[in-house]
């Protein structure tokens, strides 16, 4: 494989390359969460909305799609300012 294809960014928020994701898969990651732990892909501001599909595609060779457990993105799905959350019911 040429360098050009290796430098493809899969997760743009955290600047994770295709090669780093392939390496994580070689080290035993079989789920989106496993990829996230090893590379930080999907941990950025968009919380994986862009890269999830691409990474699932790369994992698809490893496992049945139904087995690819969705990662644990937890509330809040959108960013929230701490002050707004704390003061929300104090008005």
């Amino acid at each position, binding site marked *: 494989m040429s360098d050009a294809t290796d430098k493809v960014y899969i997760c743009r928020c955290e600047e994770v390359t295709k090669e780093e994701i392939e390496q994580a898969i070689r080290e035993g*990651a079989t789920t989106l969460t496993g990829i996230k732990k090893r590379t930080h892909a999907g941990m950025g501001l968009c919380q994986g909305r862009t890269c999830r599909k691409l990474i699932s595609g790369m994992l698809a060779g490893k496992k049945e799609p139904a087995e690819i457990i969705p990662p644990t993105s*937890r509330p*809040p799905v959108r960013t*929230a300012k701490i002050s707004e959350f*704390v003061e929300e019911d104090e008005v």
Partner: protein
Amino acid sequence: MTRKADVVVIGGGVIGTAVAYYLSKRGKKVMVTERYDHASGASGSCDQMIILQSKNPGIHLKLALASGEMYQTLARELEYDIEYHNRGGMILIENESELKIMEDFVARQKQIGLQVEILERKDAAKLQRGLAEHLVGSTYSPQDAHVNSIRLNLGFARAATKLGAEILLETEVTGIILKGDQVEGVETTQGPIHAPVVINAAGAWAPQIGRMVGLDIPIKPRRGQIIITEPVPPYVTGDVLSAQYIVAKYNPDLIKNSESRAIQLGVGLALSQTEKGNILIGATREFVGYDVKTTREGIKEILKNATRLVPGLKEINFIRTMGGLRPYTPDGLPLLGPVKGLEGFIMAAGHEGDGIALAPVTGKIIADLVMDGKTFMDVEALNPNRFAPGS
């Protein structure tokens, strides 16, 4: 296929992989079985503190000091960036009664050899910006540090693998193979593994492994919820805790009848910033079984407490929350070493809120005990048989 090893380690969290690394280093053929993946238990959903000064003066602090020492060269030894930073730590003090307790705590810690002092508010404010006006001061220790727990976990696993260990992910232990009272291996979802030594490093799930051999292990899952902010420029320099948390941890009677929701949820400030700039804000301490969900109430109480102590945090956005299960023990100390009456069965679990700080020293102690039957410090207080009736 039947697999064979010198030692089987159950659990691929920081403790299991640390044990695997130090045993491999001493020449043992180790197999680690992990039900899901590394960092899928507490080791992947926790704070990152190697905080020495939160430890009770005594064996707990001695363990932390030994571990803190090992951390200084660990990244080099593992040949892996674990994002270790030695930036010190402080415990925020809110009133005179907390100050009195902390003065005593600090004096006893100094006797054991920790560098720690009490700062007035104005000096504390030089070390950490955004502090609340009402604080009376803080403690400070230059020896506190932090580390990326996930990278620590992966780093131990990689280094162990390089030394010949085999790590079986997605492999759940379903039974222990016994011959009389001698352990002979484990049954797993991927077939049996034969080994004369089996190490239970299953964290909050260690009691489930214990039940497979009729042991009643007094570890309970204690949930902690944490909030993660967006990456921001350096804001939290070292580790920041609150004295309220230390007071509650070591004097549970003082708050037993409190009506405050925050206190009932065990909320105590834990603040630190990752290399990428995300601030981790913790945490609750709750007994809710094996439930790792985060709750709106828990998150709100953590944030209220954090902004009361560090109002400067208010303008920051948070992007994620997570919950993890600390392996709680009744006396706050881990269970390390051989179990009486079960030849070859060794415990390495129960680190509650300190497993990241104590991972290196735990790995070393267990490796020493397996290889030599003794270790460099007196670990009788960690003897796993201490809770057995009649002991």
